[in-house]
């Protein structure tokens, strides 16, 4: 790699690092408003969202319904806190909305819904819907001869739903090279560890067997994420692509990284300011 390329790559990583930090910070502030929230997931998936929103996706923050945008579908509605944070950072949603997160008449409800929030493409929450909707949208984009892409963020828990696999088969059948699935594997779902509730490993082999181009990376490693997203987007294979991201819940806040993992990670009232402080320290922000 040339010096210029090395510098360019380093600055790209640094830019995304800053974005990921801000996404984590926005999410923690939303959690603080409600005194609860899926901050464990948001902290875990922040790096993935930073790369998706600030490197991969084509979007116009001032016009979230721009016809030529890439469509980002959040099927895991409870991750809305993470997507709101990314949309705030991208300038689609005003940062002022954080104060109303999850409150009456807020545009940021606890579970993500299309009608409430600019940039929220679909109503998630009933898991197993997003990828199938993505198949229909990807088929529709091809009908329109559109160059736009569909991104769908799923979780490892969502792989339990049979409807997800109907969509996995269908996307390969239709050779939907304009569809990129992202699976956040944090090995945690509502009742227990995903591997204990219903083991889906080896996840990558399963998607590959269905006919997908498959990438598996450390979802908290920005350099690895950049390579995976770039490769998925540059590939000329006539297949849908999946980027499987192993993430750590609570990433970026040491006491949450090590806390007992549950679906709804516990944060006590006096811990929010500690969390924000630890996050700032982790990113060398005074």
């Amino acid at each position, binding site marked *: 790699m040339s010096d210029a390329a090395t510098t360019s790559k380093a600055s790209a990583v640094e830019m995304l690092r800053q974005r990921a930090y801000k996404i984590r910070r926005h999410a923690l502030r939303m959690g603080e408003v409600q005194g609860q929230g899926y901050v464990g997931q948001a902290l875990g998936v922040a790096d993935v969202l930073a790369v998706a929103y600030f490197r991969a996706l084509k979007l116009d923050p001032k016009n979230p319904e721009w016809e030529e945008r890439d469509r980002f579908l959040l099927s895991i509605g409870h991750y809305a806190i993470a997507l709101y944070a990314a949309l705030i950072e991208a300038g689609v949603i005003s940062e002022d909305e954080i104060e109303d997160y999850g409150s009456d008449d807020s545009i940021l409800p606890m579970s993500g819904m299309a009608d409430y929030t600019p940039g929220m493409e679909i109503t998630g929450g009933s898991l197993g819907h997003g990828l199938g909707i993505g198949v*229909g949208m990807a088929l529709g984009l091809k009908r329109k001869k559109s160059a736009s892409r569909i991104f769908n963020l799923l979780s490892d828990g969502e792989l339990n739903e049979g409807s997800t696999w109907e969509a996995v088969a269908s996307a390969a059948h239709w050779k939907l090279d304009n569809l990129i699935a992202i699976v956040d594997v944090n090995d945690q779902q509502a009742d227990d560890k995903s591997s204990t509730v219903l083991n889906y490993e080896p996840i990558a082999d399963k998607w590959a067997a269905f006919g997908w181009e498959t990438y598996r990376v450390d979802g908290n490693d920005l350099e690895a994420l950049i390579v995976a997203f770039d490769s998925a987007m540059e590939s000329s294979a006539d297949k849908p692509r999946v980027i499987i991201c192993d993430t750590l819940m609570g990433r970026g806040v040491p006491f949450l990284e090590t806390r007992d993992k549950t679906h709804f990670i516990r944060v006590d009232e006096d811990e929010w300011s500690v969390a924000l402080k630890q996050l700032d320290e982790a990113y060398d922000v005074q």
Partner: protein
Amino acid sequence: MSAKQKLKTSAMIASIAGEGQPTTSAPFGHALVEAAEKNPKIVGMTADLGKYTDLHIFAQAYPDRYYQMGMAEQLLMMAGAGMAREGFIPFVTTYSVFASRRAYDFICLAIAEEKLNVKIISALPGLTTGYGPSHQATEDVAIFRGMPNLTIIDPCDAVDIEQSVQAMVDFDGPVYLRLLRGKVPRVMDRFEGYRFEIGKAKRLMDGSDALIISSGLMTMRAIEAADELKEKGVDVAVMHCATIKPLDTDAILAEVRSHPDRPVFVAENHSIVGGLGESIASLLMKEGVSVKFRQIGLPDEFLDAGALPTLHDRYGISTKEVVKTLEQHVSTSEEIKPTI
């Protein structure tokens, strides 16, 4: 009865037409082709039942606008939602049992919650197959009536189906239509000026002795019963309520109130639980309209397999049985109590 005299199930699932009745073949498929000529946004999608929902006619005419999604009804509804999101008007087809029982969550949240423009066309509604409960959607309307934003259409015949296709294209929003397929009888031709309209109930026949309010193929039975009873001196009015939701409350209330002493029968190809009958009973009660009221519909049971004519007699929805029910209640002065 000897084995030889028994009716065969297989011969009886293709058509509900009576002997000598004029029919149209695959009215839905042909009407969709006609609508698609004018509107390039229309696409057809199915879950491995294209040939069995008359969508194959569309597939032959527009192969590049036809999407075979495989035997995956959840996916069918999700993909239909996705297509609608991209501005298309998907007509998605399956059987009523699969749409209502298997794909409910996907219709509810992926389609109805967002008012997406998906038309769900489902064959074998109510008791229109002798295959038994796996294929008989006797409770599909009950399942769907509670779903906000969803319009429910139960067409009577080929004329209704042909006209409803263009009406659905012109209507922006999700629709569930109970399809009659194959050789479908034409009965509305005799009513001059009849037009199918979403949300409108239409009085087809006037009569002072009884009123039948009906939907779907039971309107056909109601007309036949009214014809027969007229010859016996009983004057029966028939109101066709092809849209079950939203209910045309104004027309129904006006019709019922116009003859306060006339008994009201609601006839539907559906369970007596949760369908048109209960919908109208609830309307009349809420509006303080007290009339003699009776339901003609399928019992709250899993029904038998067998040949359709046998089953329609057995469960009281054949013309013969409708006539009997009316004679029993109209010709006597005995007070009729609601059956529900």
